[in-house]
């Protein structure tokens, strides 16, 4: 179960963005990818989501070889929250979430699909936005709508590219507890996060990405050690012990 990535390499037609990446994302846990801007985090998520095609390496999701799955089979297995999103037409929140059902729909979504969309909207806690035009929402509200869309899709693995960006503190806390809920109901969540403190407070497992390669941990080394973070982000940081992990302070 979970996601298994083996010797995955990728380039956009120029320099390699990912070079022989190998790691495991344990099933039923909240895993977080950390790394600098441009280290290949978003590309990695897109590859696992099946958005980008890859030639070298292997990706297995819940034991299925991603290469052998059709677009709609992938969608039933993996849900993906893209980083930026701005549609042209002012669809209502309900209609946007309903598009998450595409891999189940023949021509037009039925009653069951509408129910699933409503459930997802309630679960994220945005029922009050149901009939609002998506284009008129704040960045944070849009983020929640797109997360509801991922949930309506009913995937086993949820990939989130910076899900906390644009969210205020209360929505951040709400989303993190929602992620915890999803994980305890058996889903696998893999997210790219920019804020190491949130990552270390809430994540179960960590994938460290540096210059398109996995930065492996040495013996006894932990992701929240200041030396590890200095190496990963190329800046000086100090850490304060907090609970059984650490808080990161940039200096």
């Amino acid at each position, binding site marked *: 179960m979970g996601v298994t990535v083996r010797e995955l390499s990728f380039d956009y037609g120029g320099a390699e963005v990912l070079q022989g990446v190998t790691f495991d994302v344990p099933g039923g846990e909240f895993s977080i990818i950390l790394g600098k801007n441009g280290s290949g985090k978003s590309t990695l998520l897109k590859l696992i989501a099946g958005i980008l095609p890859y030639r070298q390496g292997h990706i297995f999701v819940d034991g299925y070889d991603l290469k052998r799955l059709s677009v709609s089979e992938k969608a039933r297995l993996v849900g993906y929250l893209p980083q930026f999103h701005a*549609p*042209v*037409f002012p669809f209502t929140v309900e209609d946007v979430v309903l*598009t998450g059902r*595409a891999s189940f729909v023949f*021509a*037009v*979504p039925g009653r069951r699909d509408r129910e699933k969309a409503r459930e997802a909207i309630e679960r994220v806690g945005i029922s009050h936005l149901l009939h609002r035009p998506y284009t008129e929402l704040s960045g944070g509200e849009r983020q929640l709508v797109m997360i509801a869309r991922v949930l309506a899709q009913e995937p086993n693995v949820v990939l989130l590219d910076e899900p906390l960006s644009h969210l205020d503190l209360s929505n951040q806390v709400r989303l993190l507890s929602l992620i915890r809920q999803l994980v305890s109901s058996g889903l696998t969540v893999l997210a790219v996060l920019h804020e190491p403190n949130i990552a270390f407070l809430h994540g179960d497992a960590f994938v460290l990405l540096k210059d398109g390669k996995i930065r492996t941990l040495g013996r006894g080394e932990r992701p929240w050690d200041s030396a590890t973070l200095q190496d990963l982000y190329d800046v000086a940081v100090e850490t304060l012990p907090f609970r059984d992990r650490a808080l990161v302070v940039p200096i």
Partner: protein
Amino acid sequence: MGTILFYSIPVFLIVLSLFVGPSDVVRSADIVLWIQQKVGVISGEQSDATLMVDAIILNVRLPRVLLTFLVGSALTMSGSALQALFKNPLVSPDILGLSAGAAFGAALALAVHALPLQLTSFVFGLIAVGMSYFIARGKRSVSTVSLILAGIIVSGIFTAGLTFVQFVTDPFRLQTIVHWTMGNLHTASWEKVTSSVIPILFGAAWLLFMRWRMNVISLGDEEAKAVGLNPEKEKVMILVPATLIATASVAVAGIIAMVGLAVPHMIRMVTGPDNRKIQPAAFVAGGSFLLVIDTIARTVATFEIPIGLFTTLIGGPFFIVLLKKSRMLYREN
């Protein structure tokens, strides 16, 4: 209730349009007599007057009214489907070069008698869209910007071709071509209705099937792929029927401007952006819109005004006012 009312609009309009027209030979008293004979209220020999009514209503007005409705529906459905497909409210059948391609084909057929008009126009319309599509096609995907650019180039090529055909054609046939490019419905006949009804209804049914997928596609390629639709495949599945109905319409009625661009906007202002509502509404409202305009066009003057001029003159200002009033229903991006 409102829905039933909306979908019964065409029936009323079609019946009404049958009894409106400039022909002096048709007097209202004869029409009444003719209806009474038709429904069997009175029996007896048909007079010359009722025979004339019979001919004008059944062989002149009925095919024209039906053709007008079909053309209006086709252009509007095609336009709104293309707008959803390209995530761009400024797109219309003209933008892909398909109108220009179809027009070139038709002009060629009018100049060279051996070529069948409908088929030639249809084939060149498809060729034009195919050209736009393949010029714009990158390694893996077709980007919106490059597709629109390609459409402009292809339009230019076929418009130049059309001009060349006009240049080398003798003056007598030239007049027919010029008239045809202005868009007109007064040459409507049962032959034109039967040649266009099948492609238009087939394409319309196909687009109706795709109507919800248009929503998914208009959110963006990555967003469509993430939920399990292959954007390239879905785009072709929308592009083909949208092209089919638009070229079928150009083949019988020439280029009728504004309908494919303006009417989808008017509909969207009422229904909102959900294509599940837009597509069926486009069939009804698009046909009704053109029918009303054509009925006016053939009634107000003693001579035939080309419908293309009328749709631009009426649709243009109407569209501008609506656009200003609606506070722009879509995002600037």
